[in-house]
């Protein structure tokens, strides 16, 4: 399992080489160590889960990947190159998109405009061309709109296209946020608790979308999730964190039988 040779999963998906490699990441806030010397990799085409109890440092890890936090120690390798310290928007341009634990949609804009913001990294016309609009800017707008419309079809949210996101129910907001991330056509998609606060049907829908994204677009996905059932069903490999340390890494089955993981989740019996 740990080899770098490409392989094909049981359901026929192609898993390639290492896409992202986190090496010895340590992150401190003042005196608190949120992440302690953690290394793991994410391979092309796989669904990689990060799990752990509350406060384990999962979201911090995602924030390190997306460049929002800068680790004091350790290296981030992306597509075979060491990534220098970057601003979040530069990371986004590398092809890393994400969703947020507490929905971070732009409340003052329509669903369509929100998803169009996901295309920003692909849109290049200058200020002057945009001021004139006719010609270059309009052509670019239409081309990108076509991409966005495909994603809208894919996630089945055609009916709410022009609705302001502020009016949407929670489950749909989560889906719009996924759409915005997908619109960037990312090489790596980070999902921070995509199913938090959802009921069973909504979770099933979301799981289906995640699997479809991975399957149809071949997008590599790293996700944080609390629902163990979902994690075990969805993911190819799982990293388990507890108090900022890595306590397990492997296939769902391996992790499930790891004693340390069981202790972290169920607690250790005190003598």
């Amino acid at each position: 399992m740990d080899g770098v040779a490409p392989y094909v999963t049981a359901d026929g998906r192609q898993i390639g080489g290492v896409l992202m490699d986190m090496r010895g990441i340590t992150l401190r806030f003042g005196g608190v160590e949120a992440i302690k010397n953690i290394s793991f990799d994410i391979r092309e085409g796989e669904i990689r889960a990060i799990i752990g109890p509350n406060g384990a440092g999962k979201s911090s890890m995602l924030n390190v990947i997306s460049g929002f936090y800068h680790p004091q120690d350790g290296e981030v390798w992306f597509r075979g190159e060491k990534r220098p310290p970057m601003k979040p928007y530069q990371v986004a341009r590398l092809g890393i998109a994400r969703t947020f634990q507490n929905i971070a949609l732009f409340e003052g804009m329509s669903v369509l405009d929100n998803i169009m913001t996901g295309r920003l990294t692909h849109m290049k016309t200058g200020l002057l061309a945009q001021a004139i609009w006719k010609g270059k800017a309009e052509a670019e707008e239409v081309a990108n709109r076509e991409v966005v419309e495909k994603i809208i079809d894919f996630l089945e949210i055609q009916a709410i296209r022009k609705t302001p996101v502020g009016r949407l129910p929670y489950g749909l907001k989560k889906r719009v946020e996924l759409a915005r991330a997908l619109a960037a056509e990312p090489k790596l998609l980070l999902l921070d608790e995509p199913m938090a606060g959802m009921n069973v049907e909504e979770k099933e829908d979301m799981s289906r979308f995640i699997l479809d994204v991975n399957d149809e677009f071949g997008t590599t996905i790293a996700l944080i999730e609390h629902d163990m059932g979902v994690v075990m069903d969805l993911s190819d490999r799982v990293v388990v964190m507890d108090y900022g340390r890595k306590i397990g890494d492997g296939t769902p089955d391996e992790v499930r039988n790891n004693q340390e993981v069981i202790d972290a989740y169920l607690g250790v019996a005190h003598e």
Partner: protein
Amino acid sequence: MSADFLYGIEVVINGLMAGVLYALVALGFVLIFKASGIFNFAQGVMALFAALTLVGIMEGQVPFAHLINAVFGTNIHHFGWQVPAILAIFMTVLVMIAFAWAVQHFVFRHLVGQEPIILFMATIGLAYFLEGVGDLMWGSSIRTLALGLPQGGSLWVEEMTSGLGGDDFYGFFIDKLDMVATLVALVLVAGLVAFAQYTKQGRAMRAVADDHQAALSVGISLSYIWVLVWSLAGIVALVAGIMWGAKSGVQFSLSLIALKALPVLMLGGFTSIPGAIVGGMIIGVGEKLFEYTIGAPYLGGATENWFAYMLALVFLVFRPQGLFGERIIERV
């Protein structure tokens, strides 16, 4: 010691005293901001309004006389009595408390949970409103505030210090009123700190400042606390209004001192009472010194108009939370 240097010291001392007055206005901002997250742009107009009200009551003016005359064709202006200063101050305090209640009841109660910037813009509206009301109530001419506060330079200080320099140094010129203002400001600050530390209401106020939800859950009435802090801010405004009014007359420009308090707050941090005081001193001394050393000789003077803002601006770029503010860790 050379005379220039001594005059420099005099500038610093006068700057410190001006700074105390800035700090006094800034204090009103901090009170409201800590308890409700409202950045009250109207603080300066409140000072103007309070001073106008005080003068109006003392002189026995009929409120809204101008308007009443216009509407009913009457010709009234004064009740024909004079109210003693102490009683007038007391009545003004009551007016400011009524104002605090009205503000809370009619405006900010309906804006709970709005973004800070919306609240800020609402207070700009409030400033206009209150300025208009003040003018309608008491008229807009320049008034003198005759509270019998000492005025003019202090001869005593001048004589005491004239020996420090050579022949061309005549001692420090320090306005008595500034000395009184400094004293009052210090007493007021001490009083506020004691109030916040040792009384039940003070504790509740600090609880609200810390966390609205938690304060609610232990049974503190938010709207009561907000009326309380607006009242306190009104009283602080009255004191500031008296000091500035006695110094330069009660007129519209009084409300502009509020704008001076803004850079004070940016320096000191919006949540810190010591910050407001230290910030006030820095701005007061800074602008006087800058005017004395650079502004007046090289730049054509009147640099006090903008120096405080520029100082705060430059300072903020390097330390966005101010001197004493808490550092904000951003999260997603």
